[in-house]
């Protein structure tokens, strides 16, 4: 899932400067992340009102990254949108851009920061799992991804900073290489780590910009 976090409200006020706003949410990831579902939109509307910014209307797109759905759903809110000075989008970075393809004459304000493609561990506890590199190599690493989960993206890890299973950059972050090591050890296949992994082919992540 695409993990988002709502922007700090004061910063958001600075970006909005002046209302009224029309608020757009998303039925998928942003709803699950509790950053852009119906509940969050209603709360946002109230918070804005307390700061003298009115809301002309709102909609939860289904989902925001779907261009044809956006066109259809936003058409129904044409009048409310036209009355707004700003469009506040509570969806991922993709949702913001799909909306900006449909609504062209009004300033678009992203209301969330898009963090990563990650796992929902528990409610409101998410962890990065993938950077969408276009060339999955998890078969080499026991089904875990050192590119997205090692802060140095090492393919021949661990580095010299792995301590007690934790990463050197934060003791709240598991060292992914320690996890790979433990999985291989359990299987009795530690020798697989001795093979030198070649440099990654990053061209796969840039050439696959579009799939028809």
């Amino acid at each position, binding site marked *: 899932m695409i993990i988002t976090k709502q922007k700090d409200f004061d910063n958001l006020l600075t970006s909005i400067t002046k209302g009224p706003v029309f608020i757009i949410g998303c039925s998928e990831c942003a709803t699950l992340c509790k950053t852009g579902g119906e509940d969050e939109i209603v709360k946002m509307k109230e918070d804005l009102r307390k700061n003298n910014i009115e809301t002309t209307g709102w909609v939860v797109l289904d989902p925001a990254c779907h261009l044809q759905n956006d066109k259809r759903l936003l058409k129904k809110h044409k009048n409310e949108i036209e009355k707004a000075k700003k469009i506040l989008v509570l969806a991922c970075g993709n949702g913001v851009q799909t909306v900006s393809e449909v609504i062209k004459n009004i300033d678009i304000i992203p209301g969330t920061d898009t963090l990563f493609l990650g796992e929902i561990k528990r409610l409101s506890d998410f962890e990065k799992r993938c950077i969408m590199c276009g060339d999955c190599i998890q078969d080499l690493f026991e089904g875990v991804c050192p590119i997205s989960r090692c*802060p*140095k993206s*090492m393919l*021949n890890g*661990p580095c*010299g*900073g792995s301590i007690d299973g934790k990463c050197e950059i934060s003791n709240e972050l598991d060292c992914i290489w320690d996890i790979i090591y433990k999985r291989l050890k359990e299987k009795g296949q*530690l020798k697989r780590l001795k093979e*030198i992994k070649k440099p990654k082919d990053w061209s796969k992540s840039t050439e696959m910009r579009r799939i028809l």
Partner: protein
Amino acid sequence: MMYRSKLERFLSEGKFAITAEIGPPKGSDPNKIKDKAKTVKSYADAFNITDNQTAVVRLSSLGGSIIILNMGLEPIMQITCRDRNRIALQSDVLGASANGIKNMLFLTGDHQLFGNHPNAKGVFDLDSIQLIQIVKNMRDNGIFQSGDKILSGNPDVYIGAAANPFADPFELRVDHLEKKIEAGADFIQTQSIYNLDKFNTWMDEVRSRGLDKKVHILAGITPLKSLKMTERMKFHVPGVDIPDNIYHRMKNAADIKEEGYNLALELIDNIKKIKGVHGIHITALFWEDIIPYLVKESGLYPRL
């Protein structure tokens, strides 16, 4: 036998080599690095010029290496994967080689979050093992990483790598060394040693696999200058192992600098006796002027 560098010759002839680290200045004044170089010049065989160590911006390792090369010192230019992709890394190896730099040490690099520009984007296109393999292939086969041919001059590099015998999982540490040797490392500098028992355990395994015959190992020595430094190294520097007894010894010392110096002397004395260790690498952080005393009192002077 033609050797690429004095360091290669010393190590190949079985002499106990000394390398010392010279940290470039936070600025463009060449006199800073020249002064440090003058202090340590006669007391080591080659000198590591660090590459923005701990991710703090300093004069570049290429620039620093050229400065000391012009003073008649032999540099070991450090190159990390943090700030450059494979294009820039290979280009810097060629540029350094063209300027007469023979020894290079390849590292993955400290994460940018530790430095003075934590907002920077880390590159990490390669890791150290991949870079070592690429440089070996450039040197021996005249091939760039892409497979493209080098057209005019393979870089004649004496390839160095780092090893940390103290990191976790400990079981992998010798495997990791073996991987660096297989990738192409000619010499190894280890993390600073304070835990001799653990270092000995690591070296026992190194010798049992015959790795000391395939690579030259220089043991890391960092004299502790103050309690603050001891505590920083013990509690905050990733991958450094200062055992409690050494920490207490420093804490209870009447004269901390003297205790730190004596401890370094003892470590050198013990390390000299370990089979398979071919030299020491001294990193005297903000304490370069201690190096001449350490080397002399360890009976390792003069350097010939």
